């Protein structure tokens, strides 16, 4: 493997890491702050890709970003409406919306399960044209992704300090306390999920334009991959300020992609990605529980030995 190969791998790791980190930031808002595990993430990711692709194909590369995010807001609204107003369990609400989105996404793509954007003008080709001839010309993909990530981190850092942002964090922490502070938790949950899903859709939109392809299955397993990244980035500094934690979530996404790239180079078949992410999430979430339970377990084993049962 030559130097240029390595540079290429590093580049694609950074590109994909940054683009998928937008979904990680979405979960940072919904999962870490609002304490809702939004299982509509997969479908919403594809929704962003589909809407973005259709709008870009019709000749509006910039509008495609806004349209995708607006679609994400709509999807997030439906999910939150189901769980706050219709009495649907929050996990189930996500699953229901996710299932429905499969049909919606194919409908958005005009009945096709695949949209090709090989010759389409996208935000990436726009940036490529803009930087043509400058020393940055080779970096246009990273720049687009980095700008989007920086914007979302900046938004989250500022937003979560506002009264509404504090109320959203408190909703995930102690819903009763929010009510006692005369704030309607239905409102904060709705705003939080709408914003989170806008970022998820943005993530899908950018990935589709990056790979010049929107595919009905591209969101599958995204929620697990993103959770894995979030947990990788979150295990280090739990109590640090929000901007630091948001940056760590992005680092987690890039680390995840890097590990994945290394595994691919060690001849791991590509289809193993989802299993690896599933194992990471299962391990990371169960670790604190097992750590708490371990002393009890050891005591039982010891007691068993003392009684001669071992």
């Amino acid at each position, binding site marked *: 493997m030559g130097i240029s190969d390595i540079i290429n791998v590093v580049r694609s790791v950074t590109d994909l890491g940054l683009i998928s980190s937008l979904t990680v930031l979405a979960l940072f808002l919904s999962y870490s702050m609002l304490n809702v595990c939004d299982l509509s993430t997969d479908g919403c990711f594809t929704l962003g890709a589909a809407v973005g692709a259709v709008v870009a194909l019709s000749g509006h590369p910039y509008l495609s970003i806004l349209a995708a995010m607006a679609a994400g807001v709509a999807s997030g609204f439906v999910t939150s409406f189901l769980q706050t107003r219709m009495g649907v369990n929050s996990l189930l609400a996500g699953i229901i919306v996710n299932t429905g989105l499969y049909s919606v996404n194919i409908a958005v793509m005009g009945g096709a399960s695949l949209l090709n954007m090989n010759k389409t003008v996208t935000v990436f080709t726009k940036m490529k044209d803009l930087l043509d001839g400058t020393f940055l010309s080779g970096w246009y993909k990273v720049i687009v992704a980095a700008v989007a990530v920086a914007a979302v981190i900046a938004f989250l850092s500022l*937003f979560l*300090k*506002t*009264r*509404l942002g*504090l*109320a959203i*964090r*408190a909703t995930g*922490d*102690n819903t*009763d*306390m*929010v*009510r*006692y*502070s*005369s*704030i*309607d*938790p239905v409102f904060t949950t709705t705003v939080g999920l709408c914003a989170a899903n806008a970022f998820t859709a943005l993530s899908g939109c950018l990935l589709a334009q990056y790979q010049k392809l929107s595919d009905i299955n591209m969101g599958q397993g995204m929620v697990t991959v993103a959770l894995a990244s979030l947990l990788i980035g979150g295990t280090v500094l739990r*109590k640090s300020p929000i901007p630091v934690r948001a940056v760590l979530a992005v680092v987690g996404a890039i680390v995840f992609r890097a590990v994945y790239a290394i595994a691919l180079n060690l001849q791991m078949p590509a289809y193993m990605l989802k299993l690896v992410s599933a194992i990471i999430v299962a391990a990371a979430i169960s670790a604190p529980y097992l750590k708490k339970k371990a002393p009890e377990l050891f005591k039982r084993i010891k007691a068993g030995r003392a009684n001669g049962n071992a």
Partner: protein
Amino acid sequence: MLELKKVCKTFNPGTADRKKALDNVDLSVSDGDFITIIGSNGAGKSTLFNAISGGFFPDSGRIILDGEDITYTPDFKRARVIGRLFQDPKTGTAPSMTVEENLTLAAGGGRWLSVCGRRERENLRGRVASLGLGLEDRMNTPVGLLSGGQRQALTLLMATVNPPKLLLLDEHTAALDPSAAEKILAVTERTVKEQRLTCLMVTHNMSQALALGNRTVMMNDGRIILDAKGEEREGLTVDGLLRRFREVSGEELDNDRILLS
């Protein structure tokens, strides 16, 4: 200022577990009243508070606060004018957020997208300092790291940072160790006096029920069976209170945590 008119609430209606938690409760609270509430287990004290603060809507009857019918007002809207403290200090605060963030939320005001400014932060810090517990140096500490007493003091401040029309205290010192309970009670009395709050307080400490406030209400089986104020109350002793309970209800006061001291 607060009127409860024939408020009824039955839990689990139509089942074997049906329980008439509030049975035609009439209560008229005047401005500045400080009412202590005592009663057996399951007498309906907390249910009464839930009805007032909007935890549920009553089956029948009316609840009127300052001339406004709030019977069917959602709880979070009532919270603007009704402050409430619970036995569990964890109930009223968000543990992973700092003292300052908790207070900022409780203080409300300002636009949704506004940030707590320096002047407001100074102001909140001053309010925390007035508790006299040294919490003003821990404004950036997550509330989950505070002791139960500190947390309850903060909850009290959060409930009264904008003086409410009505303050409901639901055995708010019962889960604390004696010295913390004493401190919280002192801060409570001071706050109620300074802000001239109208206050209802559930307690299981009989002598406290007689020593604090200007009225004592006794509940049994979802009904108010004694409402002592003025001279009648001044003459009451703990023994007298227990005797009155026996006379009216025909049974012994049965509360596994009651303190007769």
